[in-house]
C-alpha cells in the first residue's frame, strides 16, 4: 500500500504524550493523559473549562478511538453526523456508510462500548466521511493501528473522500507506524519458548438481548479448536480479522466473561495459578490512578507482593529505557509506564498466563518491542506464559506459536494453531 502518494500530512511522535499534546494544540480539544493520575486530570480539566473558545470545524479521530464517539450507538452517531449537513438521514443512510467501511449494519444498535478496537476505528471513518461536507479537514490519530492489514484500504478510501472535497488530512502516528515512512525496520529480539497447554473445549458465549434504551438482538459465539495438540509455545500470538472475537476469547481465557457451555482455560498442575489480562484499553485498568498510586491500592492487603510488583515495575522501566536511543528521559506517569506497571502487578502474582491485548497501542514500535520482549523475559523466568493479541505483522517474527481465529459461520469461530 503506497501511502506516500496520498496528500496526507503525517506527523510521527516518539511518545503517546507527545502525540496527545500535538492533537490538543492542533484541534483545540482537550484530551486527558489518564496515566498522570487524578490530580493532574482535574488540573488539566479545569484549565480546559477556562479556555477561550476557538473554531472547531474539523473532523477528528481521537488518540483513543472510543473517545471520539460521543453518542451511545452507531445509528445515533452516523445520523447525527449526517444531519449536520441537513441530509435528514435515517437507518438506510447509516447502514450504507457502515457497509462502505467494511462493517455490518448489525452493529447499528450495538452499544459503542462493546465494539472491538478495529470496529471503533472503522466507525470513526464512517463518521468522518459523514462529516466531510461540512468540516474544513480531518485530524486522525493512529488511523490504521487497530486494523488488520486487509482493512487499511478503508483509511485510503476516507483520504480519497477528503481529497476529492479538497480538504486537508492530518495523520498523527507513533514512530514505526505503517504511515511513518521515516521509521527504521528494526527487528525485535527473541526469547526462548515456554510450553503452555490450553484447554479449549468448544466454549460458547451468549450475549443477551438488549431492550433498553435501543433494542439490540441477542447473539452468541462458539469457538472450536481444530488443532491436534493442546500445547502452544509462549510467547504465542492470537490473530484474526477485526471483529472476529479475539478480545472476547482473551476474556474467556481470563475468566471474566461467563461461558454458557464448554470450557476455555489453561491446564496447569497448580489450580491456584490464574490467567491475567491486559486490556486493549489498558489505561482504564489503572482505575484513574497514576502507576504508583495503582500499585499502592492493588496491593493494599499484601506488602510482599507490593514490593515484588514495584521491583518488577522499576526493572521493566529500567530495561526499556536502557535500550532507548534517545537517552533516559523516563516519565513515570506516561502510558508506557502505565502499561509496564499493570504488567508488573500481574507478573508479581506469578500467573500461569498473561495475555496482552494489542500491547503496542499508544507506543512507538521500538517501545512496544522493548516492553513485550522484557515482559516475556521476566514472565518466562516465573514460568508464566505470554499471549499477544495483535494485528501487527512484526510480532510474527517474535512469537513462537500462532493461534489464528477465523469466522466459519456468523456465530462460529475456528481456532487453528501453527508453530512459528
Amino acid at each position, binding site marked *: 500500500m503506497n501511502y506516500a502518494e496520498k496528500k496526507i500530512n503525517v506527523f510521527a511522535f516518539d511518545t503517546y504524550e507527545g502525540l496527545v499534546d500535538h492533537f490538543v494544540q492542533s484541534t483545540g480539544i482537550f484530551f486527558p493523559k489518564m496515566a498522570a493520575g487524578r490530580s493532574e486530570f482535574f488540573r488539566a480539566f479545569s484549565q480546559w473549562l477556562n479556555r477561550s473558545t476557538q473554531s472547531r470545524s474539523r473532523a477528528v479521530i481521537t488518540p483513543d478511538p472510543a473517545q471520539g464517539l460521543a453518542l451511545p450507538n452507531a445509528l445515533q452517531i452516523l445520523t447525527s453526523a449526517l444531519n449536520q449537513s441537513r441530509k435528514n438521514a435515517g437507518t438506510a443512510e447509516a447502514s450504507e456508510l457502515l457497509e462502505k467501511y467494511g462493517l455490518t449494519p448489525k452493529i447499528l444498535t450495538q452499544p459503542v462500548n462493546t465494539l472491538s478496537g478495529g470496529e471503533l476505528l472503522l466507525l470513526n471513518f464512517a463518521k468522518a466521511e459523514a462529516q466531510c461536507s461540512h468540516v474544513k479537514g480531518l485530524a486522525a490519530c493512529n488511523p490504521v493501528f487497530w486494523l488488520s492489514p486487509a482493512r487499511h484500504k478503508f483509511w485510503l478510501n476516507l483520504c480519497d473522500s477528503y481529497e476529492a472535497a479538497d480538504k486537508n488530512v492530518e495523520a498523527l502516528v507513533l514512530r514505526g507506524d505503517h504511515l511513518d515512512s521515516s521509521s527504521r525496520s528494526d527487528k525485535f529480539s527473541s526469547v526462548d519458548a515456554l510450553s503452555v497447554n490450553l484447554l479449549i473445549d468448544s466454549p460458547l458465549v451468549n450475549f443477551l438481548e438488549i431492550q433498553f434504551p435501543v433494542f439490540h438482538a441477542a447473539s452468541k459465539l462458539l469457538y472450536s479448536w481444530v488443532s491436534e495438540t493442546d500445547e502452544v509455545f509462549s510467547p504465542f500470538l492470537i490473530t484474526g480479522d477485526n471483529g472476529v472475537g479475539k478480545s472476547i476469547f482473551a476474556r474467556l481465557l481470563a475468566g471474566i466473561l461467563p461461558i454458557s457451555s464448554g470450557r476455555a482455560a489453561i491446564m496447569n498442575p497448580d489450580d491456584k495459578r490464574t490467567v491475567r489480562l491486559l486490556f486493549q484499553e489498558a489505561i482504564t485498568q489503572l482505575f*484513574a490512578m497514576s502507576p504508583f498510586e495503582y500499585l499502592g491500592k492493588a496491593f493494599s492487603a499484601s506488602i510482599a507482593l507490593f514490593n515484588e510488583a514495584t521491583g518488577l515495575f522499576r526493572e521493566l522501566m529500567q530495561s526499556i529505557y536502557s535500550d532507548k536511543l534517545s537517552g533516559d528521559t523516563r516519565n513515570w506517569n506516561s502510558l508506557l509506564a502505565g502499561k509496564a506497571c499493570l504488567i508488573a502487578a500481574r507478573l508479581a502474582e506469578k500467573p500461569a498466563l498473561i495475555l496482552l491485548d494489542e500491547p503496542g497501542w499508544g507506543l512507538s514500535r521500538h517501545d512496544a518491542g522493548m516492553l513485550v520482549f522484557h515482559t516475556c523475559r521476566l514472565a518466562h523466568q516465573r514460568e508464566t506464559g505470554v499471549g499477544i493479541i495483535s494485528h501487527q505483522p512484526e510480532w510474527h517474527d517474535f512469537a513462537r506459536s500462532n493461534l489464528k481465529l477465523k469466522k466459519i459461520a456468523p456465530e462460529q469461530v475456528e481456532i487453528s494453531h501453527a508453530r512459528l
Partner: protein
Amino acid sequence: MRAFEFPAFLKLQNLRPWWLKMAVLVLIGYPLFSNRPAAFIASAMGQCLPETLGALLVWPLITFFIWACCLPSLGTAKLLDYLAAAYAMAVTTTLSGAALRGLLPAIFLSDPVADNLRLMRVYFNILAVFPYSLTFVNSFSVSDLMARLTKTRGKFRGAGLHLALALRICQHVGEVIPKLLLVWREENPELLLPRCRDDWQGISPLARWPMWVVLSISQWIFACIILTFEPIPVMVNEIEQIDESGDSDDPDKV
C-alpha cells in the same frame, strides 16, 4: 436467547411527542418528588389498617409501582441489573445511617420509631429512584434532540444544545459503570474481596474488610467521576460544531 418482550405501547421510550413522554415520566415519578401521594395512600390505608402499618407499607407500594412502570421499557434483565446496583447503594446508605445514629446519638435526637421509619423510607426511595432516574434519562434520544436543533434558529437553540450535552453526560454515567465492572472483575475476581490479601491474617477481621471496602468505594467514586468527565471535551466539540454549522448557514448573520 430471546427475552420476553412487553408490548411497544407500554415502553416509555416509544412515547411521542417528547412532551407527552416527559409528562408521563414526571407523573410516574411524582411520589418521589412530593409527599402528598404517600400521605394520601397512607391515610387511605389507615382507615382499614393500623396507622403505623399503613405508613410502613406505603413506601414499598410506591417502589413497586415505579418498578412496574419501568419494567416494560427496561426489560427484566436490565431492571435486575439496575436493582442490583440500587440494593447495594440502599443497603450501604441505611446501614451506615443506622451505625451513625448508634455512634452519635446526641446529633440524632429523636423518636426511635420515627427514625426507623425514616431509614426505611430512604431505603425504598433509593430502590425506586435508581431505576427510575436511569429510565428517565435514557428514554430521550440525544441524537434526535441534536437533529431537531440543527434545523432550528433563535434563542432556544443554545439552551437546547446545553440540554443535549447535559442529557448525554447523564446517560454516559450508565455506560461507565459496566466498563469499570469488567476491569474490577479482572482485578478482583471475588468482587467483594481483594485478589491479593496475604497480610490479612495479622489484621482483625473487624477492621480489614471495612478498611478495604472504604478504600474501594473511594476508588470507584473517583474512577466514575473521571471516566464520566473524560469524554466531555469531545462531546462539547460536537455540540459546538453543530452550533457553528448552524451559524454559518444563517443568512441573517452579519
